[in-house]
């Protein structure tokens, strides 16, 4: 995939850093909010059934990048994309692709637990039901809650409001909700940042478990978390140019390599705590 003769440090991943079986291939992705360029020329691959962590300082565009993968940025007015994102070899911005169909295959868990103001059961069941799921809903709900390691805590109160759960439980409910749609990929935007250490640990355990079946892309503020859970890490940073602040992907590679032997000075500065 990478021509060794043309390889330049920092622009492309090291040859052994490239995932063998990518589910997403992103090339030269730039993203604009109106006139503001939030992301510039991001080229990256997301490995199948791997956990990819995206780290970097605030405002570096990692969340923007994540939200490009399921086209959630479409909901923002004046958003514009350049470059390409291929999901299983097909462009996600092709005119034939309906965002709702894409998002069924690329689910999302948000920074703050955001259950619907409905019962626990309904939170998990509503998307499959309205998407036309034909199987046994009760079974799907149980299965999804089990996958999210929440079943034992809620099995006796499925009719209770989702708001009666603790923050950590609500976040696992949101994971169950995403799992119930049977996606291939789950995007997580700082899923543990609003949670205490115990709940954070539960979410991290869960991610390791979910990796067997799903591709996970997780944005995190927390470098230790990235090091603990991920197979591959991408480091984003902010570049200040005359046109304004822009997010760039500095380097992406296997987590072990990136944290022990970064190719870029900026990555090293960030992970050693000299910046950010």
């Amino acid at each position, binding site marked *: 995939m990478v021509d060794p003769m043309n390889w330049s440090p920092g622009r492309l991943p090291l040859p052994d850093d490239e995932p063998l079986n990518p589910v997403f291939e992103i090339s030269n992705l730039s993203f604009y909010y109106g006139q503001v360029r939030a992301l510039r020329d991001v080229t990256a691959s997301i490995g199948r059934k791997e956990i990819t962590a995206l780290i970097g300082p605030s405002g570096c565009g990692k969340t923007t990048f994540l939200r490009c993968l*399921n086209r*959630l940025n479409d*909901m923002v*007015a004046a958003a514009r994309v350049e470059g390409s994102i291929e999901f299983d070899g097909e462009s996600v911005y092709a005119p034939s692709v309906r*965002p*709702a*169909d*894409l*998002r*069924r*295959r690329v*689910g*999302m*868990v*948000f920074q*703050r637990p*955001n*259950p*619907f*103001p*409905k019962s626990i059961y309904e939170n998990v069941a*509503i*998307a499959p039901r*309205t*998407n036309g799921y034909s199987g046994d809903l009760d079974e799907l709900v149980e299965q999804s809650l089990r996958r999210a390691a929440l079943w034992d805590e809620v099995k006796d109160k499925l009719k209770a*409001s989702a*708001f009666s759960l603790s923050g950590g439980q609500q976040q696992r409910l*949101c994971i169950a*909700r*995403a799992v119930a*749609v049977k996606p291939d990929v789950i*995007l997580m935007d700082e899923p543990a940042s609003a949670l205490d250490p115990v709940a954070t640990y539960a979410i991290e355990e869960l991610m390791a478990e979910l990796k067997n079946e799903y591709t996970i892309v997780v944005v995190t503020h927390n470098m230790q978390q990235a090091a603990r859970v991920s197979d591959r890490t991408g480091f984003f940073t902010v570049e200040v140019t005359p046109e304004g602040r822009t997010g760039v992907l500095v380097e992406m590679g296997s987590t072990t390599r990136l944290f022990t032997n970064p190719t870029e000075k900026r990555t090293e500065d960030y992970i050693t705590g000299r910046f950010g």
Partner: protein
Amino acid sequence: MRRRRWKDRVFWGGCTLALALIIAPAISVLVSVFHQAAPAMSWSLITHRTNAGGIENAILGTLLLLLGVLIVAGSIGVGAGIYLAEFASGRTERILRFYSEVLAGSPSIIIGYVGYVTLVVGFHWGFSLLAAVIALSTLVVPYIVKTTEVALRQLPTYLREGAAGLGMRETTILWRILLPPALPGIVSGLIVALAISTGELAPLLYTAGFSDSNPSLHLFHQAVPYLTNVTYTDLALPGAQAHATAAAAGAFSLILLIVLIGIGRLLSRRARMATRQMTL
């Protein structure tokens, strides 16, 4: 220090005075209307029609008009509010908003007059239920549009994004995710619109006409009796009997108003509690 305390007192004194100035007229209206209505208050008031000293037809007519407003203004207003909050953008949004505001600022007598010229005379509908309902609806539609739009817009973004992130379609998100929590707010807006309709006279003068018989469901050519008209006309008649009937019609309007406002407050409180829970 002393000066500050003095300022403080003047401020709170002013607030108390302002509050009294709001409450006093309201109480005075209630007391005087019910006092003047007292002689007319009897069972026969609601079992006899206006040609026999009662106001039965006017009560029924007002209720019928409210039902009509609920259907016409309710569907148009809620629909336009949803459109503004969820789908409109750019030019269409600006145009719709502008005309909604123009309508909201139009004097009610103008709306009544336009209704008369176009519907009653132009379309040859005569004084009629439909003309009256359309005139009243025109008056309250902007209000319903606004409350519906606000009820939807105040819902947190993460609710929409959460649903979109699960691959739900736009219409499904609207019906299953957004409308249920917005509903109490929308309904309380509808109820306040009905309360406004209850007390309106001007748009109805030239469109509903008046009749001593009970209202029918005919949409055209049949005048509709209503409460505010009884108050308006009977007050101008000589005689204590007529004045008491006028006051009684006013009292019934007020009762209807208070009931509607009560329901509206109950619902909006429930809406507030629901959204508070959500932003936790």
